[in-house]
């Protein structure tokens, strides 16, 4: 049985909008296990991204506890959260969010250098990871606006995993990609997961969710469904799709 890496208790997150309090996450209890590829699904406005940002220490909850590797992080200051994120979390965003004025390699190194000292090994590692995602040596000196959406997202993934984070968080990483690019990106995620990486991903795409080992369904700020699957590729894809589809239909997706 895998150990718990991330746990929430009575987690609440609300936003104030024009004097009105909007409760997005309500008393949410959740446990993420080490090595799991967890996908969070739900309709628009169900609080998927909000939950992801709260879990990852990108945002602070209003109430409740978040235990990351046994350590409570909900009361951390912004700077403490930043330090916490450095070694523990990697992020892949829907909009990629590469730094416009930096080359591909510098984007990756910017993420790495805050954790590790610069060295030839680190640069080699960054280049090797970029190559592994299908990018070529000549792409390393390109700027983000010279890359396709898929290429940019690959850079985003490498930047997220360069520090070997305990959990890789991803917010709809294929949301802005065409199907070919999406497939390439998802293959990278699967590859990373097979290497033992814990992943928490938000998506509304069935094909993406198929890569997970666990699918959580979120509605009105609470988890209403929890579906488990074997590791991607270890079972029959058709059966896998049918099972997940049924689960999602049951959830009213």
């Amino acid at each position, binding site marked *: 049985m895998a150990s718990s890496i991330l746990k929430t208790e009575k987690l609440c997150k609300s936003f104030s909008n024009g004097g009105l309090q909007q409760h997005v996450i309500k008393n949410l209890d959740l446990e993420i296990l080490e090595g799991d590829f967890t996908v969070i699904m739900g309709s628009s406005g169900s609080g998927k991204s909000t939950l992801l940002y709260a879990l990852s220490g*990108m945002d602070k909850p209003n109430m409740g506890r978040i235990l990351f590797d046994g350590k409570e992080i909900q009361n951390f200051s912004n*700077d403490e959260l930043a*330090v916490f994120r450095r070694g523990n*979390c990697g992020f892949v965003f829907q909009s990629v969010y590469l*730094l416009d004025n930096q*080359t591909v390699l*510098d984007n990756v190194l910017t993420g790495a250098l*805050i954790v590790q000292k610069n060295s030839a090994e680190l640069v080699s590692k960054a280049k090797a990871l970029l190559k592994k995602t299908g990018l070529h040596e000549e792409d390393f000196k390109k700027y983000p606006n010279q890359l396709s959406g898929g290429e940019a997202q690959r850079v985003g993934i490498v930047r997220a995993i360069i520090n070997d984070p305990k959990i890789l968080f991803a917010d709809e990483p294929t949301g802005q990609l065409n199907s070919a690019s999406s497939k390439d990106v998802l293959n990278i995620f699967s590859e990373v997961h097979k290497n033992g990486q814990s992943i928490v991903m938000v998506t509304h795409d069935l094909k993406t969710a198929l890569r997970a080992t666990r699918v959580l369904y979120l509605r009105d700020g609470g988890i209403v469904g929890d579906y488990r699957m074997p590791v991607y590729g270890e079972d029959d894809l058709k059966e896998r799709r049918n099972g997940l589809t049924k689960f999602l239909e049951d959830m009213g997706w």
Partner: protein
Amino acid sequence: MKIWRLSLFNLKKNRREAIGIAFLTLVTTLMLSIAVSNHTKINTAFDDSFRLSGSVNTCIRFYKQKYHDAFRTILEKEYKVERLQEGHLIYADMTDVRTRDGDVVAYNMIFVTEKVERKIESFKKGDQLPSSEMEKLEHPIWLPSSFEIVKGYVPGDSFTILKSGKEYPFTVAGFYETGLMSNDGGSFKIVVTEGDYDLFATVFQSTSSAECVGLFFDAGDDFDYEEYVNQCIEAASENVSLSMTRYCYQYEKYNAVTFLEIFMMMIICLALVTFVASLFLIRHKISNDIEDQMQQIGVLEALGYRSKEISLAYLYEYVLAGGSGAVLGGILNILITPVVNFGIRMMLGRNVVGTDGIFGVILVTLLVILVVVLFALLKARQVKNYPPVIALRKGIRTHHFGKNVLPLERYRGNVNLGLALKGFVGNAKSFVGVMICIVAAGTAILFSALTFVFFKDDAKGLLSMMGEDTETIRVHLMSGVHPEQVKEELLKLPEVRKVVITHEGTNVSVKGTSNDAYVTVFDDFANAEQIKAFEGRCPERADEIMIGLRRSRDEGIGVGDAMVLELNGIEKKYIVTGVIGSLHNGGSTVFMTKEGYERLNYHARAGMLIVYPEKGVELKDLEAAVTKRLGGTAKDAIGENLEAGDLETKIQAAAEEKIATLLMQYGVTDVDYAVQVGDQLITGNSRGFVVREITSYEGIIKTQMIPIARMTKGFTLAALILISVIVAVILYLITSGDVRRQRQSLGIMKGLGYSSRDLMTQIALKQMPVSLVGILIASVCAYFINQIFWAVLFATVAETKWLVIILMDLALAAFCYVVTYLSAGKIKKISVNELMTE
């Protein structure tokens, strides 16, 4: 949508930055308009005051024994002078006065009776004692109104003149408006009763302080003073140039307004620095705003708005912000007019009324707005460079196809520094405006700091520029006293570090100019500590001379040129070997060797000792120690208490006082006396006195230097603080704009684990190359401005305090870093999520 709505929206969104720009234009307008409107006011206030006094515009004073009636005839016949009058007056050279506070200061004073005063001007009285009280006064005195305005005297105050050990107490009867002779730099004309005048005529009978004849008149444009001096010399058949002094409207005004005008010039410089900073800031911000809102511009263009209309949105924004600042600055100027009037009144020593200068305020306000409009317009026009397609793609300039500068791959240092440098090099061009702001403001700060440090110890800085060894006392020996023996005696004192034997200084005529020279003599100038030539060298031979920078500049003579000096009919030629920055005697001093001086004055003997104190010894303590060792001075012996002792002691004391009076006031060199009392013969002589007088620069320091030093110190400190605030505002505006523009990048960095402190450090470090280079350039500029300031205004050479410059550079760099770091602090308040999704 009306396009100005976009301006209002931007103003509201960036209200802090708008307030910052409004603040800068407010300061600019306020300072510029103060300088412009008050430049006129200073001049008119002086002229009004002069007119009100009813004074003639010229007074020439001749020592009585050198005066000839022909001098008056020349004026009557050769020049079309008007209102010509003649009268007697007493000139008292740097005479001690015990002020109302009990402090002793020294003034050049001219005593006149009311009758003579009315020949000079109307004797228009101001505040005064009631006539009932005035009648009771034994010794009433009327002071120029500047004593009331500047020195705080009120009618009824005591005003005690100290001369030759005696006190002459007066009571201030009141004040009067005076045209001529009313300033610290020249003389103060004081009206006394006929009885007191007669008394003073016997008290002041030395070479420099004595009764004079004055010719008072209104000189026309044809009056040439130098020509008149030559005519007087011819008429008298002797050189009387050293015996005559001119007081005129032009000199009086120059003395009164120059310092104020220097302040106004400094205010203008500060205003220009602020204005340059504002303009470049506006340019910088418009440029950034356009880049920031590129997509919005693209959308508006796609909707059919012309680039000209969109440009106007930016123009309106800055015209509203800058314009409101300018208008507020103008209004503020009008509101603080009474305060400014008070300041001018204090510095001018004359009454200032009225709010004239409003036209200047309006003009400056409009000018500031106009320049802001032009600058904003020129920059806002760049919108036309972005057609919709390019604008929607955030402008071609935001795409990077160039070389990757400072790649992180090769960087091995601190990551924050690496990213900061990368950020700086990647945007170096956009920092040009910031650099100009820092250079301008840094120069003003460093110049203010140098000036402040110079005046830190009040008059000490000015004393160092006197071109004389001022940190000394001068012991004037009695005739017949051997200076070498006294020197040996003095060197035994622990308070004494060094003693130099020299001649007393004297005034000599310079051929070809009415600008007489005061001679300073040194056996060997290597012994002098503050007399250093900045061009050429000090004199070494008998035919060599060194001159002050002002004389060199005014008379166009320099190293290698010859000049002819004249004293008591003897003329000698000297070659100029050096030029010195010298404030002493208005820069008229000349320096020569003992042999050089003796060529001009055969009978001269070295009868003065310059005594240098040991480190930490105050001049007054040194004087006390010297007096104790050598005995009292002849000057102090006058007026000593004669009450105590037997008859013989009393007679000896009275005799000694009489001897002291003869020695001090009548130029007698040796006295022997014998008094027969019954069978007893009481005898004595003047050889008991070693020291005739001890002098120092204390008086001139208190009356002339300390007020200037304190005023300048206050002004430069205020300037230092104001410009520092301006630098802080500039850096805040640039940094907060930077943070706003880079919100997303900063959010991404935060997401990657960079803390707010890391990012604030990066932003502050990114600014540092600009700040450091700017400060370095500012240091060089400040150095040259400081040199020019002292050379042009005071005809002296400023010592470069490199340590101050280096320390200020470091402080300024640290200040820039801290301000930028703190200005980036709003990063802290924004969560990663908000930053990225902004």
